């Protein structure tokens, strides 16, 4: 098998597995911090029980997030050594800043939070969770700045056969990074919100610990409502920027072949990459793609055919993942609005509660789809317009990568089973009150 493909599969496995746990910890840490602060302020024991119940689930997630993070720090060097040598001046420093400024703080504090219940006052203990939440968010900031640089490289000069930093603030304050950060983090909050709502709904359906889970559900609902609306609006802005700086990604995610003005958006289509067309197009809405990309229904949208074949991303995967992300995102807004209307009659709404239990996996699917869209849509570039993925790979034997990929799948598969077993076990357990 081709070493580039194997290395990409390994990167995708390691990153997507890591990304199963990180989004939940990002949002849950804030919700737990809110619960614990209320306990520290009011002394209301119910908030303490909530902190402990959600805290257990948080810690399992956090643990898996931390250990899978180690791989990510090293896999650029192991599998993408040519990329590393080419971009280390910029990309490497962003990762190093993340490790020293953010990751250290959250990893040290997590131990203090787990073991420090009797050593710290309730207020100090709650403050530790706020700091963990802050540090994880800061960690996301740097990782996303690094990824945004791969999507839209700025602030560099080509010198000594590599990309060297010329303007640090251009790298860290670029629009792409800011838009991508808010999009990713708010999507992560949706994951957490739906997780908390779904688990609470499970217990409410069983009519157990009603006050406990009604409160939890409401905290989740507020988060879910705010951030599903925010993610959609912000995603639209992000899309406009992608249209501007990564036109090939836009064309691929819409399976848009011919350059046209008043470009239509196909609700569904089956792209036929060989013949550069779509087999079927269903629900074609004229002008909508122009509107989404440029906020102008008459704008010209460049089609895939106008990009040289060797510079086109694959079409099917971005096309489907975009639809998955947007479709689910719309559903999240709908579900949280229903929740808002039924917030005082949750127990009388068993159907809604059942739907919310079943919806727990959906934000995970949406956020992974978004990540796939960002990464696959960037192909064939590893750094957009600057370095091709096929030129970035390490000089390894493909058998080495095949073996390590198999090992990743096996180990992560087993860890995933053990991890989700523990998460589910703790989530369905009736908290002792």
């Amino acid at each position, binding site marked *: 098998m081709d070493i580039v493909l194997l290395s990409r599969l390994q990167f995708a496995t390691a990153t997507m597995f890591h990304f199963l746990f990180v989004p939940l910890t990002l949002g849950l840490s804030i919700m737990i911090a809110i619960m614990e602060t209320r306990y520290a302020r009011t002394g209301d024991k119910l908030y303490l029980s909530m902190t402990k119940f959600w805290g257990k689930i948080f810690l399992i997630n956090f643990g898996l997030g931390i250990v899978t993070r180690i791989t990510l720090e090293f896999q650029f060097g192991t599998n993408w050594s*040519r990329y590393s040598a080419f971009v*280390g001046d910029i990309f490497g420093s962003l990762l190093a800043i993340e490790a020293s400024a953010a990751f*250290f703080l959250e990893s040290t504090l997590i131990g203090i939070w787990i073991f420090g219940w009797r*050593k710290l006052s309730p207020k100090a203990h709650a403050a530790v969770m706020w700091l963990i939440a802050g540090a994880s968010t800061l960690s996301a900031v740097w990782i996303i700045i690094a990824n945004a640089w791969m999507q839209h490289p700025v602030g560099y000069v080509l010198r000594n056969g590599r990309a060297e930093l010329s303007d640090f603030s251009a790298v860290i304050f670029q629009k792409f990074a800011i838009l991508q950060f808010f999009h990713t983090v708010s999507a992560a909050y949706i994951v957490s919100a739906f997780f908390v709502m779904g688990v609470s709904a499970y217990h409410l359906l069983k009519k157990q610990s009603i006050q406990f889970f009604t409160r939890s559900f409401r905290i989740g609902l507020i988060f879910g409502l705010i951030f599903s609306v925010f993610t959609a609006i912000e995603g639209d802005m992000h899309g406009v920027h992608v249209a501007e700086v990564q036109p090939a990604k836009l064309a691929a995610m819409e399976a848009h072949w011919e350059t046209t003005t008043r470009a239509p958006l196909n609700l569904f289509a089956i792209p036929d990459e060989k013949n550069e067309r779509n087999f079927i197009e269903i629900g074609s809405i004229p002008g909508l793609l122009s509107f989404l990309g440029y906020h102008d229904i008459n704008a010209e949208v460049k089609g895939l055919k106008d990009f040289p074949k060797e510079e086109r991303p694959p079409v099917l995967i971005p096309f489907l993942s975009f639809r998955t992300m947007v479709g689910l995102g719309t559903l999240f807004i709908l579900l949280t609005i229903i929740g808002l209307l039924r917030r005082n009659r949750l127990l009388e709404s068993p159907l809604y509660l059942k739907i919310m239990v079943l919806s727990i996996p959906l934000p995970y699917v949406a956020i992974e789809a978004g990540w796939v869209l960002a990464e696959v849509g960037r192909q064939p570039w590893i750094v957009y317009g600057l370095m091709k993925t096929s030129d970035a790979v390490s000089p390894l034997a493909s058998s080495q990568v095949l073996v390590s990929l198999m090992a990743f799948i096996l180990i992560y598969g087993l860890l995933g089973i053990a991890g989700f077993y523990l998460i589910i076990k703790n989530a369905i357990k009736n908290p002792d009150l």
Partner: protein
Amino acid sequence: MDLQGIWFFIWGLLWAVFFMTDGFDFGIGILYPFLGKNDFEKRIMINSVGPIWNGNEVWLITAGGVTFAAFPLAYAIMFSSLYSGLMLILFALIIRGVAFEFRGKVDNKIWRNTWDIAIFVGSLVPAVLFGITFANIFKGLPIDQSGVFQGSFFDLLNFYGILGGLLFLLLFLFHGSIWLSVKTEGELHERSKSTALLIWPFLLITALFFLGASWFFTKLYDNYLANPVLFLDILLTVAALFASRFFIKRKEFFRAWFSSSIVILGSVFFGIIGLYPNILPSIINTEFSVTAYNASSSPLTLKIMLVVVIIFIPAVIAYQAWAYYLFRGKVTKEDLAYEESY
């Protein structure tokens, strides 16, 4: 000293601190099946590092990140060359970390036994492989003119490499058994103490043997002969090793642990000093060696990163020291009664 020289020193320091901090929890993980006679003692052992092991491990991530940021070419060549070994280390660290978190969460014999094995293997593999890897770096790697590693994982398993693996293993076992002596009471404490004393002569002999072997297998001593004052590092390290035994005998275990920390720092720096300015010496041709000068980032990046580490590394040391201080004292039954403990 120029920028690259400063960065070479920081690079070495971060790896050394990683071995010093995560070293004792590696040691405890390896001693775990032998010293922990029952579930209670096993839990005491894990909980003795419970609050701090996560933070310890981030030194590895920072060492890796700083290698990437300051010496991208070294990062690229080091980790792609040592691919199989590094993958084994990563898998080991992953299952070990998860084992700490998961072991206590289900009260079932098979579940706990499985994670017990994970803790042991997950600690043993990185301890030995890091030793083998660093000894091979001290010795030099078969790197050709385009920076491609012309060898395989099995080439690393040479005499000097394995000696390095043994040295790291003994260093961490010693370090870990002292930490256990600091943190435990009763029989487990006595067992930890006698283990430390038992390991000590083997560690001394291996360390001296390694110092001797380095004369024949590496060029590390060139820098020492050019600057004899550097021999102080070796003297200090050996002195700290003796001090450590002295403090164990006097039952001053924290001081013993502090001395063995210096032993680890000094041992790693023995190699780092000898390597300078090479990061990855080539044994094919010294012109192909990866050095602090031909592998470094641009001056702008080195300056920005210098500001970053000058601000954050002391901050990290301060709050980690606070964490160590907060969880000082013995791990007791009451600590385990506590639902969040491992």
